């Protein structure tokens, strides 16, 4: 039994942003209820590959360890997902780990998701509340709407939807599904609504919402079950109306 109780990882590694990727195989002892991260921790404790050579510890990113921060996303057996929520018992062996290909690699499995934060800036995915004086409490949100908005607010900027999208790549400037849905979230908020047109104009900038080609992979892979394709269609309608307003002029400024 002891012999069979091994877990094999084949990991795509890269020493730095500009170095070439290579594969390295590790075999570690099996423990009950292991997830991919505990496997990586095991390798870090004893960084010896399957050939018995001592190597550098494999680097990865993580934070919450409960699938709410998105930091630990990587491609596991071909599918982008969170490594903290990937249980070894449910994975086919050998387990293949790769960094997400949509983002620049920092080192090994760590990628730089900065483009997602740039995307949030492009669509102004926040609510401006600062003024020269106390503006008092904002309008209240109906409870039903709050419950609906909560689902959209679960996005953790993990990047899985961008990784799965055929139109997010080095040949295109498409911002990806996550930020489009966030623009919808903040436009639905009673205070955020006051700047709705700013977000819509952000979505219409080059590289914005028009880059969507309806492959609908995003909604299938989002670990938070966010209705991304509904958000995209809703924002398609809203940006079209905004485009007409911009072009013909409108006495409604929102």
């Amino acid at each position, binding site marked *: 039994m002891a012999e069979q109780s091994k877990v094999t990882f084949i990991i795509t590694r890269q020493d730095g942003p500009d170095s070439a990727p290579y594969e390295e195989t590790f075999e570690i002892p099996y423990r009950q209820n292991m997830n991919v991260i505990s496997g990586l921790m095991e390798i870090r404790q004893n960084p010896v590959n399957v050939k018995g050579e001592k190597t550098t510890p494999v680097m990865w990113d993580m934070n919450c360890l409960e699938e709410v921060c998105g930091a630990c996303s990587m491609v596991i057996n*071909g*599918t982008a997902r969170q490594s903290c929520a990937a249980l070894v018992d449910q994975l086919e062996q050998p387990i293949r780990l790769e960094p997400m290909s949509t983002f620049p690699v920092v080192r090994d499995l760590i990628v730089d998701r900065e483009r997602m934060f740039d995307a949030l800036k492009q669509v102004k995915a926040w609510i401006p509340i600062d003024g020269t004086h106390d503006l008092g409490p904002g309008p209240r949100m109906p409870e039903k709407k709050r419950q609906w908005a909560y689902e959209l607010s679960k996005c953790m900027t993990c990047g899985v939807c961008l990784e*799965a999208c*055929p*139109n997010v*790549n080095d*040949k*295109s400037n498409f911002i990806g599904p996550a930020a489009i849905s966030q623009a919808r979230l903040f436009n639905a908020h009673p205070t955020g609504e006051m700047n709705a047109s700013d977000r819509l*104009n952000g979505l*219409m*900038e*080059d*590289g*914005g*919402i*028009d*880059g969507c*080609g*309806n*492959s*609908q*992979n995003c909604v*299938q*892979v989002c670990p938070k079950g966010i*209705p991304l*394709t*509904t958000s*995209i*269609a*809703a*924002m*398609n*309608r*809203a*940006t*079209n109306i905004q*485009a007409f307003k911009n072009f013909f002029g409108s006495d409604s400024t929102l």
Partner: protein
Amino acid sequence: MAEQREFFYRRLHSFLGVVPIGIFLVQHLIVNHFAVYGEESFNQAAGFMGGLPFVLLLEIFVIYLPILFHAILGVYIVFTARNNVSRYGFFRNWMFKIQRITGIITLIFIVWHVFETRVQIGLGNAEANYSLMEGILTNPFMFWFYVIGVISTVFHFANGLWSFLVTWGITQSPKSQRISSYACIGVFFAVSYLGIRTLIKFAYGV
């Protein structure tokens, strides 16, 4: 404010795919279907279309320029995608890929078809009538080339209609998008029937 040119071009691309190109496609296949009722009917219908006032202006603004714009931007869109159906083999991802493949097939087909018919007619080498198409389609190779071309174009149109409804924010919820999927499958079969039935008539006279 940064540029919003891409947004405008992509919306125009989407719009032109249906109005006028898609409408023209359906109209074109309906008119051609008159062939099934006999040589006389076809020549009369084609003669009516060819005899429309300002026919060259109509052709340029309703057909050539819109298709040219849609095709050029379309080829660019095709080459900016990285298809990944091997990793993400969902239905819509396949439709996404096939939409791009049929776009390219359709482009090749349309260029050849226009060269062989409209250009030759314009040069005075041929006349727009039943025997022109009969001559082309009785060649088995050309028959199958046309079958593939027509099915590819109709698929591209029908699936494009589905994504048009999303691009313009008409179908938003998963349920509405599912219903429009069925409707567009219906459009695909109905319009394909029109086209293929006509080809069979030209090729086999039945």
